[in-house]
Structure formats: structure tokens, C-alpha cells
């Protein structure tokens, strides 16, 4: 097992609404190895976006509040970093792609300038001119580097030692050089005439093009981890297929790790290596994509997969999951899924809720975890 790039441990996040609170994430753990794509799938309100935003600590606090948990990125616990050091992690360490590209691009700047900004930030950090959490981190090559201790990072000097020298001889990185890189990244996302595109404003582009720009922008920071939050949900089917194809090709070329968040089981099946299934703030199942889709070991996963319509109406009713997602401020006792679960029995209705436990290894020996008391009964679930 290679060393993990990102490790989320027992993350619990509460939201304060009015006089009450609800738990958006409940003891969620996740591990992401370098070069892997982990998909997170779940219904609206299951906490998958909260998870995605909590890793680069982009959650609005308040109303959100991280109660417990560690987010260990490249050996550093981001929860222990002071907030003002987080920008040094974002962009060059953790890049993000959001769902709505029209809202994520600034309408007042040309596309080229926005990508140039992120290239410039990375260059400044690479030259040690602006602080980053770890001065020597190179985004794309993380294979054989010794990870510094968390304490070093937190107590390390704010200004790198060579900065006073570089400041004297400081010439801002060549504009031409940056421009050339911007064009390179636009070509990387298969934009054929990048010179023209750099001079356009976001509103002059179509949705698919904007999402390409967003991807180029995220990649231009050369992040070690890319968090894609529903990157294709706002796009049409044929455009979505193009963007997904592009992302898949880029994965091979760039070898960055991706946390891919989506509600669409089809998209996850196509993109992810490992899949985490979330339900009402809990991670209920985690495993390799083939196992999750072909032999799920949590009743919710199985029910979710079954409810995708895949027949004609003269072939009978669709199997559907009864009831609806529980109110996060009034979760049922015991297993969160028990009111809707056909396997539920007395033990499921009592606290404590089932932990996300590793299952006995299958024939391929991959790690597969399920938060169910009776995972062995799921394959024969009615």
C-alpha cells in the first residue's frame, strides 16, 4: 500500500441553523493514495459536498463547525494549521473544480488573466517569494519524497530563509513565460486556439468550455490533490461525456490524485478507482469501484444501485427505496439507515451505530469496508 496523500480521520462537522444544529458529517474517514481517484457518491444532503469543502477548509464557519477530526494532507494536519496559512495549501496543494463554472469564474476578467493569476501564484511559491506550507513541494511528483512532520510545518519559519536575497534581485516572473504556460494549460484541456480564448470573458464561452477553463485553472496550480465537486452535473449529456473523457485522459497525463464527488452513479462508475458511499452524513461503504457496483455490502448502496431506472414500464415497477433521507437534526437511533432497511432488526435500532468496518478480504484481496451489522446478508437482500 503506497503512502497516502490525503487522510481524513474521524471528521465530524456540525451546522448551526437558527437555535439548533445538525450534523452534516459524522465520523467520516477517508484515505487517498497518490495517483488514485476516489469517488464519493450519495444523495442530496448526504454531506458529500461538505466533505469536499472541508478538506481545503473552505466551509463557511459559522454556520459550519468542525467538531473533531484530522485532515492529514501530505503529512500535515490541516486542522492544526492556523487559518491564515491555508491559502498556501490551496491552489498549489489542493485544487478545486466546482459544479457551476459560470459562478466560479470571475465575470470581470478575461479567461487568460484568470489562469495567469493561478500560474503566477504557483511560480511565486516555487521561487520561495510567497509562503507555502512546505517550500519544496512540487505538485506533480510526490512519489519518493520524505514527508515532513506536522510540527515542522506548524512551527516552521513563515518567510523562507532565502527570501531577503531574492527580494532584492526580485524580478517578477516573466510575463511572456506565464503567458506561454497559460497557453500550454489551455492546450492541455484540448482547446485548439488558446490565443483567442485567453482574450474572451467567461460569459462568451459555452458551459463545456467554461468547465474546461476551470479544469485548466485548477491544473495550472499543479496541485497534488484535485477535488472535483460535481464537475459535470451542470452540463449536457454529450458535453459531459467530452469533459469526462478529457478528465480521464488528463489523469493519465498529469497523474494527480482526484477526489471526485458526484450524485451520479454512472459518472462515478466511469471515473473512480475507489468509491465511498455516503448516507445522512455517514460513510456507509468504501471499496474498489468494481466491488461497490457489482457486490455492494451495504443495503443502502444496493438499494441505490437498484433504483436507477433500467427497464420499460411493461416490465414491472421500478424497485424503489421507500421513505426519504432522514432529517439531519433528528437522526434515528442506531444505524441511520434502519428505518428504510429491509435487513433491519433490533440491534440496528439501538445505539451504538455500526462502525465502518473492514470486511474479510475477497478473492482480489482489496480493502472493502461497510458500516452494516450484517454485510454478509446484503448479497441476498430481498
Amino acid at each position, binding site marked *: 500500500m503506497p503512502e497516502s496523500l490525503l487522510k481524513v480521520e474521524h471528521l465530524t462537522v456540525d451546522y448551526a441553523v437558527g*437555535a439548533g444544529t*445538525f450534523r452534516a458529517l459524522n465520523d467520516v474517514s477517508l484515505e487517498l493514495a497518490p495517483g488514485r481517484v476516489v469517488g464519493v457518491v450519495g444523495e442530496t444532503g448526504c454531506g458529500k459536498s461538505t466533505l469536499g469543502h472541508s478538506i481545503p477548509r473552505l466551509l463557511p464557519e459559522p454556520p459550519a463547525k468542525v467538531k473533531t477530526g484530522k485532515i492529514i494532507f501530505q503529512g500535515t494536519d490541516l486542522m492544526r494549521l492556523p487559518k491564515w496559512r491555508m491559502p498556501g495549501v490551496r491552489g498549489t496543494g489542493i485544487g478545486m473544480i466546482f459544479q457551476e463554472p459560470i459562478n466560479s469564474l470571475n465575470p470581470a476578467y478575461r479567461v487568460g488573466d484568470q489562469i495567469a493569476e493561478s500560474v503566477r501564484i504557483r511560480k511565486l511559491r516555487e521561487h520561495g517569494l510567497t509562503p507555502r506550507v512546505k517550500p519544496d513541494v512540487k505538485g506533480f511528483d510526490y512519489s519518493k519524497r520524505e514527508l515532513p512532520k506536522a510540527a515542522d510545518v506548524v512551527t516552521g519559519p513563515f518567510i523562507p530563509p532565502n527570501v531577503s536575497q531574492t527580494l532584492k534581485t526580485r524580478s517578477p516572473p516573466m510575463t511572456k513565460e506565464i503567458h506561454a504556460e497559460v497557453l500550454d494549460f489551455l492546450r492541455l484541456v484540448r482547446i485548439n486556439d488558446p490565443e483567442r480564448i485567453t482574450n474572451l470573458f467567461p460569459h462568451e464561452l459555452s458551459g463545456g468550455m467554461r468547465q474546461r477553463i476551470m479544469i485548466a485553472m485548477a491544473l495550472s496550480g499543479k496541485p497534488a490533490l484535485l477535488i472535483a465537486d460535481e464537475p459535470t452535473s451542470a452540463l449536457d449529456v454529450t458535453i459531459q461525456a467530452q469533459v469526462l473523457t478529457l478528465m480521464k485522459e488528463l489523469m493519465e497525463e498529469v497523474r494527480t490524485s482526484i477526489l471526485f464527488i458526484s450524485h451520479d452513479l454512472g459518472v462515478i462508475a466511469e471515473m473512480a478507482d475507489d468509491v465511498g458511499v455516503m448516507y445522512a452524513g455517514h460513510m456507509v461503504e468504501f471499496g474498489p469501484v468494481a466491488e461497490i457496483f457489482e457486490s455492494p455490502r451495504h443495503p443502502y448502496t444496493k*438499494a441505490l444501485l*437498484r433504483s436507477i431506472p433500467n427497464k420499460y414500464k411493461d416490465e414491472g415497477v421500478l*424497485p*424503489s427505496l421507500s421513505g426519504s433521507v432522514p*432529517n439531519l*437534526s433528528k437522526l434515528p437511533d442506531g444505524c441511520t439507515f434502519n428505518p428504510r432497511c429491509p435487513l433491519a432488526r433490533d440491534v440496528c435500532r439501538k445505539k451504538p451505530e455500526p462502525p465502518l468496518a473492514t470486511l474479510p478480504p475477497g478473492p482480489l484481496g482489496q480493502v472493502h469496508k461497510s458500516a452494516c451489522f450484517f454485510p454478509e446478508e446484503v448479497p441476498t437482500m430481498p
Partner: protein
Amino acid sequence: MATATVPATKVPAAPGSAVPARRRGRVGANVLLVLRILAANPLTLAGFIVVVIVSVAALLIAIVPAVSLLILGHSVSVLPYPALDAGAFLPGQAPSAAHLFGTDASGADVFSNVATALPTDLGIGFSVAGISLIIGTLLGLVAGFWDAPGSLSGLASTSIMRITDIFLSFPTLVLALAITAAWGRGEIQSELAVIVTWWPFYVRLTRGEVLSIKVQPYVIAARAAGVSESRILFRHVVRNLLEPLAVYFSLDVGTVIVTYSTISYVGVGVPPSIPEWGNLMYSYQDSLLTQPWTVLSVTAAIFITVLGFSLLGDGLRDILDPRSRRILASTAVAGTGGERP
């Protein structure tokens, strides 16, 4: 899990018996809800309390003398001393138990002066904002709802907006000076001067809201259901307008009071014989250094009243909107109301 959905016919729907009665005591429940929201928002509660106290006090101060004159044959005041009663006391006394805010240079009780001005100022605030609200909302509704370009109504809509722009560009103070010069100094004249420049804001606000409400999917859904345009206007548009208007109105009462005090202070408001905060401020300005409590009392009265309306206005949104009501009042986030699979 893989259960068949219950066919619609199997659901028992005994006519008559299935109709739940209207929730009883809805008024009581709503009052309770409002109180819980207020309890959860201390600033709104503070604003609410200030507005209630100020309004009740203003009513008592204005009504008790008149009513008592009618019933008892002589006037009884809720205030300790008459207002603007020069020479009644030793001038320039600092605040004491006998004179809460002290006495002014003329020897009148400052508390009585400030309190007597309360109904006048509050009345001006409500009437100017209220008349502007009525004029502005009506015009704004017309201009927003029937704005199809190229039609006769569209022409009317455009005309209303251009006229509004013209009035919007009048400077309130200069207009008040002009009206005073023409018709003399008086309460009606000065109020008119404020209203003339005040109503266009309501037209702008109403029109903007109407333009956004009328393209909401629920308005289109109503149209698809065959609901007539006039019914859509009242049932959907006006109903959704009430909340932003109420919020704006509450904030506006405070703004009018400040603006009107300024006009009075400059000398084109109510005649000097009537106690009014701007007038009092003018007459006290010379004793700012020698008797600071005089100016401070008037300032505090204006400040607290305006602040009360502002705080209430900010919180009013939460009280009026059914969406935020429940969330704010209870710990439970809105759930799935009575759904069957």
C-alpha cells in the same frame, strides 16, 4: 426495499372523514412562533420592545389629554409638566429626580419637551412613509406587472418610471425651502416636501420585486392552471411583495424621522411653537456646552427611536417569511411533511 409502489387506488380515501380540520388556535400558535423567533434573536427583540414602548407612549401622550378633556371636563397629561413652559423652573438645572433630563435655558422641563415631541415625530414618520408606501406601491405594481414592450401598458409603465426618475432627482431640503417660501411654514407643507421626494423609492422597490416575482415558476404554474392575470397579481405577486415592503417600511420610518428633524432644524419644518425634535435641537444648540443634557436628551430620543425601527426591520424578514420562521423558532430543520413512499 424492492416493494411495489402502492397503486393509487389502494390508498383508503374515505371522503369527508379524511379531511383534517383546520389547525385550531392558529392565531395563538403564530403569536407563540413570533415570540420564539424574537427570543432567539435578541437584537430584533430589543427593536421590537423599543418600537412597542415608543408607540404606546406616543399614543398615551397624544390621546390621554384629549380623552380626559372629553370625560372629566379638564385635560390630564401623562407628562409631569407642560411642554415649552418657559420660566416654570430654575433654568439650567442638571438632571435630577424632579427633572429627569434637567431643565433648559428658558426654564422648561426637558423631559416634557422631548416627550411631547414624540407623537409629532412618530406621526410624521408613519404618515410620510405610509403615504409614500401607498403611492409608490400602486405605481410600482402597474409599472412592474404590465411592462410588455410595445404595448399601451408598456408605454404607461415607461412613463411612470421616467416621472419617478424626475422626482427622484429633487433635493428634499431645497424643495422644502421652496414650498415654505411659497406657502409658509407648516407641518403639512413640510411633510408634502418630504413625500414628493420619498415615494419614488417605493416605486423602484415595488417594480423590481414585481419584475422578479412575475417570472417565478409558481406564477407560470398558476397561469398554466388557468388562473386569470388579476388573480395572479393579488394572490401571488402582492402576497410575495408584502414582506419586502414591510421590512423597507419599518426601516423607512426611522429614516423619515431623521430627515424631517433635519428639515425642522434648518427652519422649514413645523412652526417653532410646536415641540418637535428638530426644533428642540435648534433651540438647544446654543447651550451645547453649558447644558449638554438638553442636546443629549433630544439626540438620544432620535437615536433610540430610529435604532428601534431599524433593528425591528432587520428581524421582520425572519418573522414574516414562513420559510425561515420554523427554522429559527425550532431546532428541527424542515423535514419531509407526511410523505408516503
